[in-house]
C-alpha cells in the first residue's frame, strides 16, 4: 500500500538541517500504523511528505504503486481527493461552511451529484454520531464533535490511505477515546490503511504497529500483541527508553 524508500529531507538555509535520514517504511493495505517520537524527531515532516504537503529531498514515496510527487498538478489534485484523507490536530474545518458542507467538501470538488453527496453525508454522520449537528456551523460545536466532523470529511470519499496528525491532541480523554475507537472501526470495516502521528501512547495503543522515530531516523517498531493493555505498557517502556540517552538506561536494564 504505502512504501517509503530511503526518504531523506534536508531543510536548506543558513544552516542546513537534516530532518529525516533514509527512512524505509512499508504499510500493508488495511494496516493501522502509529508513528511516535519526541518533539522535533521528524514525525510530522514524515507525515507531510507522505501526504504530499512537503516533498522529500531524496528517496521515493509510493502510494498504491504510484509516486504522488511525480504527478502533474491536476493529477495530484485528483489523487489527493480520491486516494487520501486527512485529519489534523486543530481540525482545520472551514468556518464559513456548515458541518454538512464541510463533510461533503471533497466530493463537491470532485463534482459529484448532490443527491449522492447528501446520502453519503447522512450515512457517515450516522456512523460517527454527528447527525444532530449537521446543520450547525463549526464554531457552534465542541472539539470532540469537530474532530468527528473532520474524520467524516476525511472518510466520505472512501480514501485508501487515511493520514492523521495528532488527531487527539486537542481533545479531552473521553473524546480521545471516542475518536480512536471510530478510527479503529473505520480501519477494520472499510479496510482503510491508517497512518497516525501522535504523542499520546493511549492513542497509539489502538494501532497494529507503532514506529518510533528519533532524530530523523527510524528507531524501532513494536507490534500489537494479544492485549491492548500490554501493548500500551510496551509503548510506555519504549518511550521512557527513548526519552533519555539510551546508554544511561541500558546499564540499568541489561
Amino acid at each position, binding site marked *: 500500500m504505502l512504501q517509503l524508500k530511503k526518504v531523506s529531507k534536508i531543510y536548506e538555509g543558513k544552516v542546513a538541517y537534516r530532518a529525516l535520514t533514509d527512512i524505509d517504511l512499508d504499510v500493508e493495505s488495511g494496516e493501522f500504523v502509529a508513528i511516535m517520537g519526541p518533539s522535533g524527531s521528524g514525525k510530522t515532516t514524515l507525515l*507531510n511528505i507522505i*501526504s*504530499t*504537503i*512537503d*516533498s522529500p529531498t531524496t528517496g521515493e514515496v509510493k502510494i498504491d504503486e504510484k509516486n504522488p510527487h511525480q504527478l502533474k*498538478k*491536476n493529477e495530484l*489534485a*485528483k*489523487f*489527493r*481527493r*480520491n486516494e*487520501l484523507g*486527512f485529519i489534523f490536530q486543530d481540525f*482545520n474545518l*472551514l*468556518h*464559513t*461552511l456548515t458541518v454538512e*458542507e464541510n463533510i*461533503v*467538501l*471533497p466530493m*463537491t*470538488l*470532485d463534482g459529484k451529484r*448532490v443527491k449522492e*453527496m447528501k446520502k453519503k453525508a447522512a450515512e457517515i454522520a450516522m456512523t460517527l454520531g454527528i447527525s444532530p449537528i449537521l446543520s450547525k*456551523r463549526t464554531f457552534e460545536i465542541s472539539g470532540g464533535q469537530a474532530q468527528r466532523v473532520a474524520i467524516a*470529511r476525511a472518510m466520505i470519499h472512501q480514501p485508501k490511505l487515511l493520514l492523521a496528525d495528532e488527531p487527539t491532541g486537542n481533545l479531552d480523554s473521553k473524546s480521545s477515546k471516542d475518536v480512536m475507537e471510530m478510527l479503529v472501526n473505520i480501519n477494520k470495516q472499510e479496510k482503510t490503511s491508517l497512518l497516525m502521528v501522535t504523542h499520546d501512547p493511549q492513542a497509539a495503543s489502538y494501532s497494529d504497529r507503532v514506529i518510533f522515530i528519533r532524530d530523523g531516523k527510524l528507531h524501532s517498531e513494536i507490534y500489537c500483541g494479544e492485549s491492548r493493555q500490554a501493548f500500551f505498557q510496551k509503548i510506555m517502556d519504549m518511550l521512557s527508553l527513548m526519552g533519555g540517552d539510551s546508554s544511561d538506561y541500558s546499564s540499568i536494564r541489561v
Partner: protein
Amino acid sequence: MTIRQFAFKNVFRNKRLYIAYFLSSLFTVMIFFTFALFAFHPTFSAEGFNQYAMFGMAVAGGIIYIFSFFFVLYSMSSFLQSRKKEFGLLILLGASDRQIRRMVFMENLLIGFLATIGGIATGILFSKAILLIAENILIIEESLPFYFPTMAIAVTFISFILLFLCISFFVAFILRTKKLIELIKGDKQSKGEPKASIILSIIATILLAAGYITALQVEGLDVLAAMIPVILVVTIGTYLLFTQLSVYILRYLRRNKLIFWRKTNMVLFSDLSFRMKDNARTFFMVAIISTVAFSAIGTLYGLQSYLTKGVKDAHPFTITYQPWDGDNEEEVNQDIETINKIIETGNLNAKMESVELNYFNIEDDNYLIVSATDFNRFAMLADENTVQVEPDEAIVVEQSQAALMQGKKASEILMGLNVPLTDGQKIQPSTVIQSEVLPAFYGMYIVNDDKFNQLGEPERTDYTVAWQVQNANTDQIIELGRKISDQIAYRAVVAEYTIFEINRGYGPILFIGLFIGIAFFVSAGSFLYFRLFSDLDADKQKFRSISKIGLSIGELKKIVNRQIALLFMSPIIVALLHGTVALTALSNFFNYNLTLEASIVLGSFALIQIIYFLIVRFFYIKQLIKSIS
C-alpha cells in the same frame, strides 16, 4: 454544493473578513459614480459647456478609473494573502488550481457586483449634496437640479463590472499556488526582521535634505528647472526613509535598553520593527500618493487665489477704462458715454475721474510723471492714502504687481534717476511708495503741481478713466461688467467681472483636481486601513497572550493607540512635509505668498486624517478588547 455555492457561502458567512475589501471597492465605485453623475449632468450637455472642461473631465474620469483598477487589485491581493491557509487546506483536500481560481473568481465577481450596486446606490443618496457643492465651486448660472442619472448609472455599472471582471481574471491567474507547505504554514512563518544599511540610511537623509533645501532655495523660473530632479530625489529619499532609515532608527531604539525596556515600549517597537518590511512599501506608496494629492489641490487653489488677487490688486476701481494707442478722441468719448449710460440704466451711482498720463524723456527713456493733484484725485476715489509732495522732491511709485518682472525692480531704476525740469533744475527722488491707483507697470514719479508744469512737452500721452460705483452688491457689478464687456471689449475692465470669469473658467479644473485629489487621498487611507486590519488577527493573538501575563486594558489601549498613530500618521506627516515644501517652492515661483492657501489645504487634509485615525482606532481597540475578555 457546487464551487459557485461554495464561493457564495464564503462571502456571505464571513462578512467580517470580506467587509474591508468590499467597502473599499464600494468607495471606489462611489467616487467614480459621483464623478460620472456630475459629468453626465444634462446642464452641461445641453449648454455646450466648455469643450476643454469636458475633455478635462473625460481625462479625469480615466485617471480615476485607472487608479481604481490598481487600487482594487492591491486590495484584492492583500486580501488573498490573508487567506493562504484556507487555500492550502483546499489543495490538500484535493482542489485543483483551476477550482481554486474559479472559486476566487466567483467570490471576486460577487463582491465586485455588490460593490458596484452599493457604490451607485450610495452615490445616488449623496448626489444632491454633491451637485450643490459642484454648483458653488463651478459657478454655474443655472442651478444643477437633481436628475435621475441613467447615463451615469449605466457608465459606472458597465465600467466597474468590466473592471471587476478583469481583476477577477487577473487575480485568479496571479494566484500562483506556492508550495503547499508554505501555504499551510503561511500564518506561522516569521517574515524575519528587515535589515537596515547605515549607508542607505545616511543616503536617505542626504537625499531628503538636498531635495528640501533645493526646493526651498530656488526662486522664479529656476523652480521649473529644479522641479523634476527634486521630485526624483525626494521620491527615492522617501523610499529609503521608510525602508532603511526608519528600520535603522527602530533597531537603534531596540538596542538602547533604557528606551526599549521601558514599560510597554518593548511590545510596541518589537512589533513595529518586524512589521516594517511590509509596512515600508505601503507607507511609501501612501506618502507619495498623498503628496501628489496635497500638491495638486494646493497648486490649483493657490493658482486661483493668485490669479484673482492679481486682478483685484491691479484694479482698485470698479471700472477702469484705457483706450488703445490708435483710438481718437471721438471714439474715447463715445466709449465713456456708453459706460456712463450702462451705469445709469443699472440705477447705480458712480464717481468718475479721468486723467492724462504723460510720459517724459529722461536719459533716452520714457517715464511716467504725474502731478500730485492728479494722483490724489485717484487715490481719493480708490479710498487710499493721498500724498503730499514738496516742490524739491519726487516720489517714486511702484506697483506690487511689478515684482513678477525679471531684472531690476522699477523703483531701483527710478531712484537712480533725476527728474529734469525745463529750467535746467533737477529733482531728486526721495521715497518709494507702493500703489496701484494709477496704471504704471514700469513705475512712475509724482511731483509737486508747480514743478509738473515745468516739465515741458511730454513724449507720449495716455488716458485713463476710472469709475468707483457706490452702494452696489457683487451681482449688480457682475451684471454691469457683462454689459460693458459686451460693448467695449478689452478697453474697459470691470475687476469683479473679470474675477468672476476667471473663477468660472477655473471652476471645472478646481473641481476635477479636488475630486482626483480626494480620490487619491481616500485610497491612500484605505491602503493603511487594509494594512492595519490584515494584522488584526496576529494582534489579537499577541495581546491575548500578553494580557495573560498581565496587561491592563489601559496599557493595551496605550500601545495600540501609538501603534495605529504611527501607522496612520507617519506617511501622512511625511506627505504633509513634502506638500509644504512643494507649495513653498510654488509660492517662490510666483513670488506670491501662499501660506494661507497651503495651510487651508494641508490643514483640512490633516484634519480628515485625524478623524479617520480616531474612527479606525475606536473599532480596532474595541475588537481587540472583545477578543481578550
